[in-house]
């Protein structure tokens, strides 16, 4: 039992990170109808910026993270302004490919600046743990869950109560009607990308914290957050969070019970488990758990 609880805790912490990334996808998708494959690149970049501010600029860790979050947000908004704005009205294929191209450029920029070696992020959590009965809670995991929870609460409050948040929801709902009400779609697009970049940075920092260490490979996490987003439904923020948790817990359980249950499926099956879950859910619900069914007109 305690093993199961332990795995569930690990899974929740992992799922919280996926949820942060998936939420970033969903915000951009709702505002602009674009799936941002470059999210993984932004995530890695954010984590490396935090490292650079902490290690090279010698800022305290908390300040470094805040600085990196702001910088990532600005980079996200700048990406939208410089590249994606030119793609408005282009077919889905073209836009998706542009973001994939950006992913490859970002990843290689990172490796050419910081190299391939694993770096220590310099976070205060390290490998410290808290014991609750038989379950071992790593401090960085507790912080991750806490940060993710706080960010998500702030996020939903922002969309519910702030003027800009409501404007963003209106734009997502009906772009033309929102324009007619005097909402600037450009501002909404830029803010969406900014928020998404900031979320990616937070996800990157919590991923690279502690014993995991910082390496260019952490961008690949975004590829696993895709199933999280799809499971929840492309355009549902609640779905993104739930999808993240589902995928995170499934993955942790698969890792934990690999020997007993998934021996037949080959080593490291946990790495592809999210995609298996995604395919199974899509077979039943082609638009995910909470996604809006697309209305098709001629």
């Amino acid at each position, binding site marked *: 039992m305690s093993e199961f609880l332990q795995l569930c805790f690990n899974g929740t912490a992992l799922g919280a990170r996926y949820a942060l990334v998936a939420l970033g996808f969903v915000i951009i*998708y709702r505002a602009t109808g674009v*799936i941002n494959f470059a999210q993984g690149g932004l995530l890695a970049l954010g984590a490396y910026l935090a490292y650079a501010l902490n290690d090279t600029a010698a800022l305290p860790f908390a300040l470094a993270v805040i600085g990196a979050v702001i910088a990532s947000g600005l980079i996200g908004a700048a990406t939208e302004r410089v*590249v994606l704005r*030119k*793609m408005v009205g*282009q*077919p*889905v*294929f*073209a836009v*998706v*490919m*542009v973001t*994939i*191209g*950006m*992913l*490859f*450029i970002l*990843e*290689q*920029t990172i*490796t*050419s*600046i910081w190299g391939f070696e694993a770096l220590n992020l310099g976070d205060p959590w390290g490998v410290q743990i808290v014991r609750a009965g038989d379950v071992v809670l790593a401090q960085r995991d507790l912080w991750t869950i806490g940060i993710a929870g706080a960010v998500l609460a702030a996020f939903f409050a922002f969309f519910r109560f702030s003027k800009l948040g409501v404007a963003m929801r209106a734009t997502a709902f009906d772009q033309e009607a929102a324009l007619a009400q005097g909402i600037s779609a450009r501002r909404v697009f830029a803010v969406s990308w900014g928020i998404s970049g900031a979320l990616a940075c937070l996800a990157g920092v919590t991923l690279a914290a502690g014993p995991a260490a910082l390496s260019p490979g952490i961008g690949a996490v975004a*590829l696993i957050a*895709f*199933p999280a987003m*799809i499971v929840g439904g*492309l355009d549902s923020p609640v779905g993104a969070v739930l999808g993240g948790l589902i995928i995170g817990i499934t993955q942790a359980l698969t890792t934990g019970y690999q020997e007993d249950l998934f021996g037949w*499926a*080959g*080593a*490291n*099956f946990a*790495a*592809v488990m999210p*995609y*298996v879950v*995604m*395919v199974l859910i*899509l*077979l039943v619900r*082609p*638009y995910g758990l909470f996604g809006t069914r*697309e209305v*098709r*007109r*001629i």
Partner: protein
Amino acid sequence: MSFRRTPRVHGLMTRSYADDLRLFGSGKAKLGLLALVLAYLGLPFFLTSDFWLSVLDYAGIAAIGALGLNLLTGYTGQVSLGHAFFIGLGAYAAAQLGGPDALNLPLPLWLLGAAVFGVLVGALIGPFALRLRGNYLAIVTLGLIFLGEHLFRNLKEVTGGNSGTNVDTTATLGGLDFKDLALLGENFSFNQGYFWLIWGLVGLVALLVKNLVRTRPGRALQAVRDRDVAAEVVGVQLGRYKVGAFAVSSGLAALAGALLGSYQQFVSPDEFSLFLSIQYIAIIIVGGVGTVFGSIVGALVLGGLPGLIDKYSASIPGVSTGSGDSGFISVFSLNQAIFGLLIVLFLVFEPRGLAAVWLRVKAYFKAWPFSY
């Protein structure tokens, strides 16, 4: 005043839809084709550099795979990131069918067998994948890459696991052994023989795809691309054509994979990653989405690029070629970054690719020296 039909019309003039759909437009096009055929037949006599031949051979393999992807993405409008999976499938199928240690089938049979295997797997996966559209489809086919890589790494009896497998195929056709060709009293190298084999197949596949897209099924596919609901309304059976395009595209990918395996004589799961799919996507974007000609041009430009960068990396400033070297970017990174950059630049500035550039040049010279 009476209209007299002139017996000879200008080569560019078309008087019916049948004229528009001709395989070879004008006399000039036929001449151009003849020149290409002569170049194909004659090139290995003059080109003996193994490096340049290998660049061309890789480009030819890429052209076959790109024709398949263009059929699916360019003509049918279905985004697929899973092309690398089918290429891997073909390579492993060739290893199982063609080698003396395996079934030891002759060249036409293992090539065809790999392609048919690809078609079958594509037809099996297609109905599930193609229920989804646009973004959802892109991500599900992305999943195909990861699931495929997992299979390639873990089905050790068939694929050799992480360490890969030898692909020791026979390449003999009617007395001609492409691996060690003796023709007209001359002996040709492995690379020269494979040039003829690969580019011959490129010609065949290009003809197949061209004929497919200029006839009824092709028009149905393009209708699906332009607006699938409208296509359904005018009587296109959506499921059938989407799955059909997916299956044919997978089959061509598997054919390219079989050639790749046979040419390299070895494959490992590392080759069939997301980056390979991205390379193929870059090829059709740079060449021209929705054109047969563009797939081949794109493959010629990009298919040999990794080899070229590798060879000339020492002379590109800032590139580190070895571990002790002081450069800020490795050859591998540079490759990925260049493919990424090409995709972004072409989509932003020339979304229709090199094919469109060529058409513009051609249109300019059509009436030259007059401007219109």
